């Protein structure tokens, strides 16, 4: 296959304990560490491994987001992607519109495979990959923990509630990654230097002329209800009697 398209979303780092703003307008992002969404890093690693096995010739990383998402794309280039496209927009974009942007990029680039993270750890939506597969009218293999390419088709093992499901899909297709698909490589310093010379195209979202879907409106953010602080017991006897007091045994 010729090209693989990979999505890299700029998201709050997974180690950050996010705080809701007092006025309920959102979560505090000022001065907060931002990273590649962890599932997208796994998506890129998988694409790179496919290319390194000689099963693809080019890996293109795409981010839809603010100008600062260049940082995440540069990291992706340092990991080994060949080029990057930033579809720039400072407003929030619903998943279906993200899927429509990806579809437009698919029409331009004609990739044999699109790999996205199964969810972004900010909005936790878990939608974009499935939506893209739907409007592209192609197969989806979501929550992948193993991918095997066989020419015009792929065998994908998916992490499902009942265990591990294997499906066969015709290519081109959309795959979304689960955590156990692979362990992303670390970026080395010389690679960061090399990445500076790799192409990064910046295109304003407006240039895509996609039809915007009816928008969801996020009206108010609040912290979750806190759990009451509990009691500490000293030994197993104490634990057993605390459980008995609560009528649990």
């Amino acid at each position, binding site marked *: 296959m010729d090209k693989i398209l990979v999505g890299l979303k700029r998201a*709050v780092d997974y180690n950050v304990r*996010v705080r*809701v703003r007092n006025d309920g307008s959102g*979560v505090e992002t000022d001065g907060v560490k931002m990273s590649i969404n962890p599932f997208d890093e796994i998506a890129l690693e998988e694409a790179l491994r496919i290319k390194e096995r000689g099963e693809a010739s080019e890996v293109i990383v795409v981010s839809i987001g603010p100008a600062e998402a260049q940082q995440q794309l540069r990291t992706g280039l340092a990991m080994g992607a060949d080029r990057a496209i930033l579809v720039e927009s400072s407003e929030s974009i619903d998943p*279906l519109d993200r*899927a429509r942007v990806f579809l437009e990029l698919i029409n331009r680039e004609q990739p044999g495979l699109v790999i996205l993270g*199964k*969810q972004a*750890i*900010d*909005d*936790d*939506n878990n*939608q974009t990959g*499935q*939506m*893209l*597969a*739907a409007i592209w*009218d*192609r197969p*989806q293999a*979501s*929550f992948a923990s193993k991918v095997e390419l066989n020419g015009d088709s792929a065998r994908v093992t998916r*992490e499902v*509630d*009942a*265990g*591990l*499901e294997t499906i*066969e*899909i015709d290519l081109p*297709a959309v795959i979304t990654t*689960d*955590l*156990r698909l692979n362990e992303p490589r670390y970026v080395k310093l010389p690679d960061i230097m090399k990445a500076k010379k790799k192409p990064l195209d910046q295109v304003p979202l407006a240039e895509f002329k996609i039809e915007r879907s*009816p928008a*969801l*409106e*996020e*009206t*108010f*953010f609040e*912290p*979750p209800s806190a*759990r009451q602080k*509990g*009691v*500490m*017991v*000293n*030994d*197993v*006897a104490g*634990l*057993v009697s*605390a*459980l008995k007091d*609560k009528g649990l*045994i």
Partner: protein
Amino acid sequence: MAKVLIIAEHDGTELNPSTAKCVTCAAQLPEADITIAVFSNSPGAVASQAATIESVNRVLAVADDSSEHALAATLAPQIVALMGDYDYAFGPSTTFGKDLMPRVAALAGVNQISDIMSVEGSHTFKRPVYAGNAIVTVKAPDGHPVVATVRTASWPAAGTGNSASVEEIANNAAVPSHTRFVELQSGKSDRPDLQTAARVVSGGRALGSSENFDIIYALADKLDAGVGASRAAVDAGYVPNDMQVGQTGKIIAPELYVAIGISGAIQHLTGIKDAGTIVAINKDEEAPIFDVADIGLVGDLFSIVPELTDAL
């Protein structure tokens, strides 16, 4: 009237309890009229189970050979073909619904509301974001169908005792052949199902091996509990993936949750926020799991767990 289509989750013979949880959520909509659709190559048995769920007005049994296994690519066009008559399409936020419903939403031209925790009005819902560290109120646009997944841990299952009508209908939608089921590897166990068990015992990285997990199973069996695990325990291969609890595993709400040798990372805690009582056993008194535990015991799990199992 709010006409709701709920997509039944099932394995061909048994209706999954997540469906009755979707019904409870849908029944909160003003003037809800609820239809459950069962897609299968032979939907009869599952459709009769669905018809017993309270608040359900009717069940549609849609037979098609392509529906022998639940594949999003083949189910989504069949659902969209029915949706003209409905204002809402709901599925559970299990891996079945998470895979399927966004494909339905995109074909219907709308965004999806993921993981409904509460219904605030006909088009207004609350849902968790940032691993449950924030709850956002979301309004879906008027004049468009609402496609959503229902966060199963937030809703009790609707009761049974109903006898709604079952209508058999034929599928007229074209289904693609580009996606084919190969196999399902399932670690069948006689223990209570993790997602519906009233009690759950979970082990973390501290267990150190799959052999050592036997002390977790022994305690679980004494308590008649389901067994879960942290991501670290699954990644290390001590237990299979379907036991992972958390942001990217299963979100559960048992009456009793016992976390053993689990530190309490936010991604794990988001999976157990709705548990009734949380018990934590950890040798590190500073472990964040103790911030959310109702009962905490500091010490070595390898002596505490067998002692507890004997004491019960």
